[in-house]
């Protein structure tokens, strides 16, 4: 992280809220609770004049949170041109809605266990998230908001770290599921586990009050029948799934990572959901290269 991006923290807020700002310890509860800072942001957005200073001082109480938010506000792939130096500016530039999504993503990563395995997982998720946001901007598909696409990329697989902590053999299951070209990813998981990461992730997202389309997309993102269904109430969530799946495919191609079988199974359905034609693909492949390779 670039240290110059961190603004000097404001005087610590004496309110008791600060201590409970990030209840990031997982205790023995399986999933991290919804961060209280998100409630504070929601509270402010309901006011006619949101108190940015109050939010900034709450966020500044956590150095990694404030640094992470400023970094996101400065990310060229998050659509911002302006150079941001403080949390207050970041909130202004991003807007409270986008900022709250960005914060949810940062806190999610902080709240789940850290290991070299998890670092690779989060690195991949972050790339998929950025590229999903970028694609949503480029494609301008109805109902697909870039900030939703970005958040979805971060939360899509959040069931995986939770299951990794609970089932010692889950890593092997993932390996098998990633390379199965016939059965859906979750079907393979369910041959070994009583549930699957999409369901666990959906429950986490629901308990964090993420928008309904995001929760639905997390639940269905490996489900071909759902992706191909014509139900109008699934359209937005299906497009979220499609854009992230496409982003993942691009990341794997550009970074020369091992190819999973998801694109083989779901690719055609995803391209239809995004109204993409063959000739647009070549263009997107080349244009997305710097976004996929960027480190932040």
């Amino acid at each position, binding site marked *: 992280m670039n240290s110059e991006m961190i603004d000097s923290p404001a005087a610590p807020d004496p309110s008791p809220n600060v201590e409970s700002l990030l209840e990031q310890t997982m*205790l*023995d*509860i*399986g*999933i991290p609770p919804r961060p209280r800072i998100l409630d504070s942001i929601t509270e402010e957005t309901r006011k006619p004049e949101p108190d940015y200073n109050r939010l900034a001082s709450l966020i500044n109480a956590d150095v990694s949170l404030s640094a992470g938010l400023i970094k996101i506000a400065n990310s060229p792939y998050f659509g911002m041109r302006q150079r941001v130096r403080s949390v207050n500016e970041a909130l202004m530039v991003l807007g409270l809605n986008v900022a709250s999504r960005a914060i949810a993503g940062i806190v999610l990563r902080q709240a789940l266990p850290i290991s070299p395995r998890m670092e690779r997982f989060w690195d991949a998720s972050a790339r998929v998230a950025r590229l999903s946001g970028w694609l949503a901007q480029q494609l301008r598909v109805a109902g697909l908001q870039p900030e939703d696409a970005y958040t979805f990329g971060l939360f899509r697989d959040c*069931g995986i770290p*939770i*299951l990794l902590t*609970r089932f010692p053999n889950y890593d092997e299951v993932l390996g098998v599921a990633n390379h199965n070209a016939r059965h859906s990813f979750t079907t393979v998981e*369910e041959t070994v*586990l*009583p*549930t*699957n990461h999409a*369901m*666990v992730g*959906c*429950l*986490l997202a*629901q*308990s964090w009050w993420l928008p*309904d389309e995001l*929760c*639905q997309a997390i*639940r269905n993102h490996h489900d071909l029948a759902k992706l191909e269904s014509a139900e109008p*109430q699934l359209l937005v969530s299906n497009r979220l799934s499609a854009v992230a799946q496409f982003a993942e495919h691009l990341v794997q191609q550009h970074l020369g990572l091992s190819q999973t079988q998801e694109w083989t199974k779901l690719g055609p359905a995803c391209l239809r959901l995004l109204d993409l034609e063959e000739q647009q693909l070549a263009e997107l492949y080349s244009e997305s290269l710097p976004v996929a390779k960027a480190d932040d």
Partner: protein
Amino acid sequence: MRCAFDHVQIPPGKFIPVAEKTGLVTRLGEWSLLQGALQARYLQEAGFPTKVAINVSRAQLVSPKFAKALHAALICANVPPELIELELTESLFMDISETVQKNLRDSIDTGITLSIDDFGTGYSCLANLKDIPASKLKLDRSFVTVLPEDERALAVVKAVTQLGRDLGMTVVAEGCENTQQREALLDAGVDAIQGFIYARPMPEQQLLA
């Protein structure tokens, strides 16, 4: 489950049908599984390991994903399954399909217990009762509120209590509001009594206070 909106409590009889119509009922159900499991976990953490009952509707049990969601909720809350009881409503008796039966078996396999709610009214059917692997039978309040005067109701209470016992279930009477009713129920041999005589529905903070 209750739903509070603008400080007004909306009873499940009002909001569940709306959820069923809008197709939200499956995920509302999954949400309530997780919330119930988290409540049980928090109560346990606070030093009150108490069984938490979660209402489950027929619409949830006909979904092939039900048991997956239940497992996911138990994993997410990291709660011992013994602390969770699923309350099945009598509408379940309408037809107990292969999917429903599999869901019930898979649910039992997680270690949770099942109870049958509102037994004796609506679709409750003895032929299906034997196929539901529940450990608790809750007798509908309509038999209780007319006690102790209504002797015919009392006869039903006694018979169902015996039936439940023979099927290996504990029998609970719902809707007990006064001491005369309680005495009649105890005489009839029920294993437990529920109702406003003990407590009204309340938020968790009040329960812990």
